[in-house]
């Protein structure tokens, strides 16, 4: 708690720079990653992230120091190279894209680890800290490193903002973009470069191994909450920044902890929460909707059976027992009781002495379901030439699906027919 206070009072200028760095890096990769995600290139991002490692090691070996600019250039070169190789393999050989990605990812990461081990055993004193590229170390981001990486991060965000309209169009409909004469090749090249750059800067905070998560997860989480690309991008940036901030805090309080896994864990938890709890797209909301639909179907079936009982006895409003209903068709026992009670509350039924009676509204609603059932049966047998003894099962489902518009359409094309294929009267 004490540490939390110290950290967020920003008294220590070191803390400020670490926070600014971590937030900028994660936010910028989330912004670029939004388009990687929308273009469904998540795995490519992962491969590029791994391919960056040999570049960093080679740049270090050539330069002999950890100058951030040199390392960025090295990483950029191999990152790009990996993309070229993936494209080449997919286009020129029989190997499919997923295999090409897996190949490039593992081979380049293998080379990277080989080089890294080599450097670590070379006795070069400058190499300490190079291994933090593997799992990231936000707290190590100070001084010159911070300035360089922050500038790159800002450039990334500005470029995405400049080309936002074009990036959006190409992600949605590339052929149309080409057709209206947009420089699609150039903009794709730009997005690829941005992805590589985002990876190169992001690995400072998260590390090579987990970089893809930082690129894709914020966008994937944001997608659950919105249906607008702009809001999605901003939200992804915010979620990424939040994870970055938390990572910086952990890196500050426990310097021996690798930052990357923490940042990724936090953003993953956010993604999981979105997956379950987001309105409309979240799993819980969707199962709730499903349950509600089931409930509506059950209610409509109860009213329908009561209506049909009324048809048989020619007395719509006679009070009936649950046994009479169950004798007509199978209803799950417990749910039938609650459904009957709910229909009472909603005013479709009234209850008297354990017997149930349709109200006017209930009778109307039951009538509509019966009508839709019989209309659909007639439609199936008349227009789709299905045998009359095969249409009932279909109609059982469809009667709950038909909208008022389709209802009107059915009535119109069949001109308000009197009788269904089983010669039952269609009530209007």
């Amino acid at each position: 708690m004490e540490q939390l206070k110290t950290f967020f009072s920003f008294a220590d200028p070191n803390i400020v720079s670490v926070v600014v760095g971590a937030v900028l890096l994660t936010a910028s990769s989330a912004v670029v990653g939004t388009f990687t995600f929308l273009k469904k290139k998540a795995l490519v991002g992962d491969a590029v992230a791994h391919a960056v490692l040999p570049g960093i090691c080679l740049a270090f070996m050539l330069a002999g120091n950890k100058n951030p600019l040199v390392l960025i250039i090295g990483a950029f070169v191999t990152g790009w190279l990996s993309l070229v190789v993936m494209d080449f393999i997919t286009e020129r050989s029989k190997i499919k894209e997923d295999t090409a990605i897996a190949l490039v990812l593992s081979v380049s990461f293998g080379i990277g680890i080989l080089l890294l081990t080599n450097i670590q055993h070379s006795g070069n004193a400058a190499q300490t800290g190079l291994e933090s590229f593997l799992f990231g170390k936000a707290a190590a981001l100070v001084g010159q490193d911070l300035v360089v990486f922050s500038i790159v991060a800002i450039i990334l965000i500005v470029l995405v903002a400049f080309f936002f309209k074009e990036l959006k169009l190409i992600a949605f409909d590339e052929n149309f973009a080409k057709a209206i004469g947009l420089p699609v090749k150039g903009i794709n090249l730009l997005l690829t470069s941005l992805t590589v750059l985002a990876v190169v800067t992001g690995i400072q905070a998260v590390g090579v191994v987990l970089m893809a998560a930082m690129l894709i997860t914020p966008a994937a989480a944001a997608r659950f909450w919105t249906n607008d690309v702009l809001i999605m991008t901003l939200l992804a940036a915010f979620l990424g920044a939040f994870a970055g901030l938390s990572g910086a805090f952990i890196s500050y309080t426990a310097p021996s902890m690798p930052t990357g896994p923490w940042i990724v864990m936090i953003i993953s938890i956010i993604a999981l929460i979105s997956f379950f709890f987001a309105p409309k797209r979240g799993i819980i909301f969707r199962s709730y909707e499903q349950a509600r639909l089931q409930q509506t179907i059950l209610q409509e079936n109860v009213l329908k059976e009561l209506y049909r009982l009324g048809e048989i006895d020619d007395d719509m409003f006679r009070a009936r027992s649950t046994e009479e209903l169950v004798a007509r068709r199978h209803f799950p026992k417990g749910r039938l009781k609650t459904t009957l009670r709910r229909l009472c509350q909603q005013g479709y039924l009234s209850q008297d002495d354990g017997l149930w009676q349709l109200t006017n509204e209930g009778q109307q609603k039951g009538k509509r379901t019966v009508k839709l059932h019989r209309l659909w049966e007639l439609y199936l047998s008349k227009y789709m030439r299905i045998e009359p003894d095969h249409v009932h099962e279909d109609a059982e489902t469809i009667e709950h699906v038909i909208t008022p518009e389709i209802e009107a359409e059915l009535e119109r094309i069949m001109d308000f027919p009197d009788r269904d294929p089983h010669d039952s009267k269609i009530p209007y």
Partner: protein
Amino acid sequence: MKIDAPHPAVEFHDLTVSYDKKPVLWNIDMTLPKGALIGIVGPNGAGKSTLIKAAMGLLPLGSGYVRIFDQPLDEVRQRVSYVPQRETVDWDFPTSVLDVVLMGRYGKLGLFRRPRKADKALAMECLRKVGMEAFVKRQISQLSGGQQQRVFLARALAQEADLYFMDEPFAGVDAATETAILGVLKELTAAGKTVIVVHNDLQSAAEFFDWIILLNMRLVAVGPISQVFTSDLLQEAYGGKLTVLAEISELIKKRSVPSREKY
């Protein structure tokens, strides 16, 4: 049967196109008139979509060229509109109906500039023409197939072009949408614009179009519907698959032979 059009809107000159190294169109050579509603008709795999993609510069040409309004495509892009097949895009993409229609303005806006008020007003007008004005703010994932097609048509209208290439705009749409789309296309041609449509249904093709292109890997016939829509020519396009042509295409693909010799 090949009827030429004087002062054509589009000229295909000896066009050969390959798809994934396999030639699918051979030596297409024809001219298409201005202000007509033109249907491209032929069996599956005849190269109908390929033809308009090639005309829009979306596929590399093996040989030949396409001229639009007597100029190369790049000179007149702003006057040409393209409606891709509905299934080629992901309709779960996070964007709204208005946004998609506004994309039709991007070509005229150019890089960096954002859609202005006038662009939005025009987009609204186009949505009204296709009867979708009530759906402006709707997420595209919530549209039915017919509504998606109408949104695509509205986007094309927003381009204010003189020539329209449309890839199966009538495929899998409801009756109301079909009427709405046909109405818009008739309006366009009445205003002197040229509309070229890939179409899969022979019966409605006879009612919809002024001109017909009969295609089956090669040009079977082109001309006004009264002269081209004959049972002989239809038989040739649909029945007479040239198996040798298909076999040669396969061979070319397998052995990676360029469709024109290069040394």
